[in-house]
């Protein structure tokens, strides 16, 4: 597993959201009042103010009945326009997928991974395409054929139209996804070979914070980099004072399994600087530490199980090295705040053991696979809700094809190019910004060669910095779709963590809902609903 679930910090995110929305709102007001004054003269102040008041009036006179009516209309429209034909594509894919992806020669975990990734990818891709097209074409089509005229000439508020559309498309997304996910679950259980079924599980790990000691025993931010470009794992040197220290919070008797054992699962990697002993893997050792009681209890030597990982069943009563003294894991080694500290050391001299934060965790009793699968489907559902919100909002100010393209770009950038965008916006991308990159292309310079100093370079870099700032703003308003992809958790046999995946996904959807609805409302309100 090469992902590191980090708990989402809600309040700092809310603070950033308030800042971004506040600034955007202030800018919108300036532009709105400016535009009104430009077209109406000083009377424009009153016109703009009137629109704001009307917005609040519409907000407080929302009718759930009308929203329901519009949502039902949207739902019926999608169904009667054959949106559910997506099930045919889905059925064809699932009928024949087994021929290509089932390979009983592979490791059980890998077989499960391939099947799970296929199902979740199919669910998210098919439903995304259907929902995006529906959401982006609903209102523009209504305007094109002018059926919206019979709605807005009734007491339906523009806000109710937007909310009704969002609710209706969300309903379609829910039905489509629920049906496909149910079929997908049955398919998974039938298609994964019986000998691999045990890997269809849902580990519920307790992750700890990791810190390091270097070879001299001094605290270090990381271990040693053994030459990886992407340093996910840090390495500790064998037979030295180097340690990786995990601090697991919230450990109690409930963390133990039914037999009163603590399951510690590890996925360490070895890096050998010499052949060493060829008939065994590298050795490592756990040491349980309670700083409050100044207790250090070494555990037995173990061999690294590279690439497959190993689960160590640590009994509640530990007797180190066959001694007389016995320690209770919970009562003696967990501190008063419920933290359990585990130090990992590599035993073989001159060899290195690589580890990252999620490489060691306490495995509490597993949940059924269905629990993780359900959360993963909830992740896809939340993504679809966001796509509906974005699509409906875009469709209030541009036509269907443009709205589709716009929403598609937001999804792709938010999902695939976000890291690149981050680097370019922060100016940390090798090769510089737009103009510097163009210059390098023309001059056949590689990205690491310094650009010669001079006035032109200064101008180029200054313009690039301006563009980077623009990109930074752009980045702030683009949703992060990575949270919604919860498939890696269940594909690797893990439960989907609420605080690291589900919570941020919910927060992202809510964060975009309010501003998008405001934009959509005023877009519909301030435009003439006439097909042109």
């Amino acid at each position: 597993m090469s992902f590191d679930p980090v708990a989402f910090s809600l309040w700092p995110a809310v603070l950033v959201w308030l800042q971004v929305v506040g600034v955007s709102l202030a800018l919108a007001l300036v532009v709105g009042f400016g535009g009104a004054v430009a077209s109406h003269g000083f009377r424009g102040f009153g016109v703009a103010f009137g629109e704001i008041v009307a917005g609040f009036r519409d907000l407080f006179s929302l009718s759930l009945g009308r929203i329901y009516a519009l949502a039902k209309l949207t739902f019926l429209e999608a169904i009667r326009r054959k949106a559910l034909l997506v099930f045919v594509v889905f059925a064809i894919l699932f009928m024949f997928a087994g021929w290509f992806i089932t390979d009983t020669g592979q490791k059980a975990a890998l077989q499960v991974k391939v099947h799970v990734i296929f199902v979740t990818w199919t669910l998210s891709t098919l439903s995304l395409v259907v929902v995006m097209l529906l959401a982006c074409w609903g209102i523009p089509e209504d305007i094109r054929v002018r059926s919206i005229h019979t709605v807005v000439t009734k007491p339906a508020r523009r806000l109710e139209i937007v909310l009704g559309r969002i609710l209706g498309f969300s309903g379609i997304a829910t039905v489509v996804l629920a049906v496909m996910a149910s079929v997908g679950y049955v398919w998974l259980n039938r298609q994964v070979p019986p000998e691999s079924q045990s890997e269809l599980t849902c580990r519920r790990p307790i992750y700890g914070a990791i810190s390091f000691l270097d070879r001299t025993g001094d605290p270090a931010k990381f271990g040693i980099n053994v030459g990886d470009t992407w340093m996910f794992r840090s390495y500790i040197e064998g037979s030295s004072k180097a340690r990786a220290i995990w601090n697991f919070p919230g450990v109690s008797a409930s963390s133990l399994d039914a037999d009163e054992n603590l399951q510690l699962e590890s996925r360490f990697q070895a890096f050998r600087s010499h052949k060493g002993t060829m008939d065994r893997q590298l050795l490592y050792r756990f040491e349980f530490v309670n700083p409050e009681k100044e207790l250090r209890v070494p555990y037995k030597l173990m061999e690294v199980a590279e690439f497959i990982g190993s689960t160590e069943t640590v009994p509640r009563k530990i007797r180190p090295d066959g001694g007389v003294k016995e320690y209770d894991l919970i009562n003696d080694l967990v501190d008063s705040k419920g933290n359990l500290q585990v130090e990992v050391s590599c035993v073989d001299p001159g060899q290195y053991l690589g580890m990252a934060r999620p490489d060691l965790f306490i495995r509490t009793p597993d949940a059924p696979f269905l629990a993780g699968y359900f959360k993963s489907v909830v992740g896809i559902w939340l993504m679809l809700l966001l796509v509906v919100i974005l699509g409906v909002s875009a469709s209030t100010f541009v036509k269907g094809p443009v709205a589709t393209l716009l929403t598609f770009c937001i999804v792709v950038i938010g999902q695939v190019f976000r890291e690149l965008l981050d680097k370019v916006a922060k100016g940390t991308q090798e090769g510089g910004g737009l103009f510097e990159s163009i210059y390098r292309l023309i001059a056949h310079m590689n990205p690491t060669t310094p650009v010669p100093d001079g006035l032109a370079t200064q101008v180029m870099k200054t313009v690039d910095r301006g563009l980077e700032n623009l990109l930074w703003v752009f980045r702030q308003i683009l949703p992060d779709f990575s949270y919604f992809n919860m498939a890696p958790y269940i594909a690797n046999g893990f439960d989907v963590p609420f605080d690291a995946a589900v919570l941020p996904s919910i927060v992202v959807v809510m964060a975009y809902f309010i501003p998008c609805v405001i934009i959509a409302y005023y877009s519909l309100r301030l435009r003439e609903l006439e097909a042109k």
Partner: protein
Amino acid sequence: MSAETSEPVIQVNNLSKVYRDFWGRKKVRAVNSLTLDVKKGEVFGLLGPNGSGKTTTIKMLLGLLFPTEGEIKILGQNASDVRKNERIGYLPEESYLYRFLNADETLDFYGRLFNLPAKVRKQRTDELLSLVKVEHARRRQLKEYSKGMTRRIGLAQALINDPDLILLDEPTSGLDPLGNRDMKDLILKLKGMGKTILMCSHLLADVQDVCDRIAILYGGELKVLGRVDELLKQKGATQITAPTLTPEAIAEVEAVLKKHGVNQVQVDNPRSDLEDLFLRTVQESREHPGRRIAP
């Protein structure tokens, strides 16, 4: 209270609409300085050739288009105020309905937009489907309807809220003569119920049959405004209608007229219009199937 003395339901003052292109350049002035009132309880006709600004005016009244200049008060509120729609019914030029719904679902949907309770929606749906004579097709999706049927269901949706003011854009367009007659009868029936009706059409006979007052637009400008009977009265001629006269009686009448200095006299049988002939033919065909109708 007569229409002339009653309060205005629609007040349009110096209304203009200029359509512009993407760059803000003026394309066409669709309505120019239009001022008129529509009084409570009257049937008011907006007439004019294609492109004269009738539909643009109606759309500005409904808030679908924004005026470039001028003011609109409709039921005492601004055209952009959605609250006015509680008391308005609108039949668009084409029946822009949701073609994937059937008649029941269509009326139920529009009824929900007025927050009508389920029982009232059901009752109104039954009444209106009966009124516009599409009960037999209430379960069929509108995409299977003929143009005339779509028009009828369009009218039904306009009446779902029992509105005080009804705006009809080309109400008889697409209807056969029977439907046309039904529509005109219905307009008169609604007038009898105290509703105010604003209709626009370029079918002059229809307007003449039902409207109390008319305005004729040309090139976006108001050219004529007044009561239909006043406007159509020919002040230079007198018409006498009597049962069929013998040739001798006609000669005597002509002699009397000559004695009073009237030399240009036209004597003929009065003619009914084609609509009357058509309606009579259909009526007799229903009563006597298989019989040829004597002209």
